[in-house]
């Protein structure tokens, strides 16, 4: 069953078409990777799904509901969480506060100004639990803006998954990491997305073939193939458009 469906989604900025008619079904529980050369529109596609951009045409359904052109917060409340390519955290707040804020909505606090946070034991325990998962327990009181890069990426991930969203979208989660850091991050991603649906944009082919159940190849705003990793590897169109380019580089 498809948890997320994109139906002929188009996006143009002025006369420039970035996404030129993408249709895609994401199956519940799958780990789906989106790959493609630079400028193919991968991040734009993420922004369209998560509500940061409005669509020019087409439609997006999440859990049987139309979500296109809804504000990001409404989409997030439905259980769609995302991370960002460039670290996007609450820099002046502590690591713990970052995670706790990410939990508020799903724990039903809304815009409450009558709950004192010190007394919300369950919420605070849950935040500590997420910190434990992403390995930042010891940095709980640390100002998040002063964390090391890999730690900030882990926090970025933590904010995305804290709410317990069913669909998690990660935009280049290991970009800029060293090999060993990336390995750890992949383990972490595997662990925290267990039993959930994952859509991931990534450049590192090893990681993608390692994690993904299915791969979609996006080239110049169009999906030219969606298939299992081994078939993608063998697909001549993909090799020509994308993998070939990587090998020759």
């Amino acid at each position, binding site marked *: 069953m498809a948890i997320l469906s994109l139906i002929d989604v188009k996006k143009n900025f002025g006369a420039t078409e970035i996404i030129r008619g993408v249709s895609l079904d994401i199956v519940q529980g799958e780990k789906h990777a989106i790959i493609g050369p630079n400028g193919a529109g991968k991040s734009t596609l993420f922004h369209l799904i998560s509500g940061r951009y409005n669509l020019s045409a087409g439609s997006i359904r999440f859990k049987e509901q139309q979500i296109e052109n809804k504000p990001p917060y409404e989409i997030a409340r439905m259980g769609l969480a995302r991370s960002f390519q460039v670290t996007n955290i*609450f820099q002046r707040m502590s690591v713990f506060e970052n995670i706790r*804020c990410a939990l508020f909505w799903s724990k039903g606090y809304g815009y409450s100004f009558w709950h004192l946070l010190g007394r919300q034991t369950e919420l605070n325990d849950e935040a500590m639990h997420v910190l434990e998962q992403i390995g930042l327990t010891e940095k709980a009181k640390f100002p998040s803006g002063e964390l090391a890069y890999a730690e900030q990426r882990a926090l970025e991930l933590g904010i995305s998954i804290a709410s317990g969203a069913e669909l998690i979208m990660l935009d280049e989660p290991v970009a800029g990491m060293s090999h060993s850091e990336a390995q750890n991050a992949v383990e972490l991603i595997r662990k925290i997305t267990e039993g959930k649906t994952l859509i991931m944009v990534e450049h590192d082919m090893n990681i993608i073939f390692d994690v993904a159940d299915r791969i979609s190849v996006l080239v110049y705003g169009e999906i030219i193939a969606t298939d299992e990793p081994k078939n993608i590897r063998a697909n001549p169109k993909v090799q020509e458009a994308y993998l070939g380019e990587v090998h020759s580089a």
Partner: protein
Amino acid sequence: MALLKKSSIWIAFIVALLGLPLLFDSILAISILNQMVIAIVFALSYNMLLGQGGMLSFGHAVYFGLGGFLSVHALMLIEFETMVFSILWIPLIGGLFGLLAGIFIGSFSTRKAGTVFAMISLGIGELIAASSLIFSSFFGGEAGISGDRTFGPTFFGFDFAQNIEIYYVAAVWAFIATLFMYLFTQTPAGRMANAVRDNPERAEFIGYSSRKVRFISFCASGLFAGIAGGLFALNYEFITEENLNAATSGRVLLMAYIGGLGYFIGPIIGAVVLTLMNSLLSNYSELWMLYLGIMFLLTVMYLPRGFAGFIMMHQLAWVRGNMKLLIKPYLVTTIPALLFTLCTIALIEMSHTEDEVFHYLGLVLNPASPITWIVILAIAGGAFYAVKRSLLQLNDAWETANAIPKEEET
């Protein structure tokens, strides 16, 4: 025990509020204390916007002023016995009107933070200040409006004719307002205000409308500014356009900034320091605004986190028990720095004075004589050099005091 430790700072706050008028009981001191508690509430309400919510407002006096105007009208209602209630509730009336104004203005001004918000706040500030001169039936034109606080029912025999009685009323309200503003920072809405300040975009992706988060802070801020306005009305029994114009908005920004936006206690420090400077300095010099400006400049340049930030900077050295290392270098720097400041003030005042002789710190100086100028300039130069030298030592001492001890490094 833990509860006692947690509330110790609040108990200290109560003791200070109640005890200060016993220590300083002159008419002037009581008047300054009254201004101080009003300023504390006002500055804290401003920091809900800027420090906690990332909204730079140039028109915060609007909510203070509107609260104050309605409060004076309420005093008049009591005076003419249209309604009879204790004047103790006046600040609440001011607060509710501030809240109403906040709801109305916040509904469109909180769409964006940053420059857009700042410009809208400036525009609204000008608009209300201009309107207050035009709609004179409510605002009383340039003369403002005045009331009398002594007409309402007495409270255990107090008729509030004395300033000291109003001080205690104000102190109780200030305590309640401060407590609630602090508690607000400890709620989801308060924390999300910080989150939206840091990163409005990301806040949207964890389920929150940045605009609504800002709106809630904005309304709360209007409420507390209105309470401060109500206290002002009780204290002075009159209010004019001056209390809601840009100058008042600028002053509250100064208080919060100089005190330190990043700390809850910051605006309290700022309010205390600026009120003191305002009332005391103006007795000594016509140029006190100039000194205030210089102090603001220096704070922005050298203490970007304000006085509270400067104090908190020493936390690490304190925890490590290294404060004693800093005492001597601080003294060695402060003494010539003070000398330099005094010389600079002398030079500024001498340029300003039109008198033949200039009385300064018990000295009689002759501003017309070049020798006076040369001597003061020389002392100032020497002091400046000494400060530069001792700053190096202070720096070293600072490094030592904050250095990570060997055993901790591993």
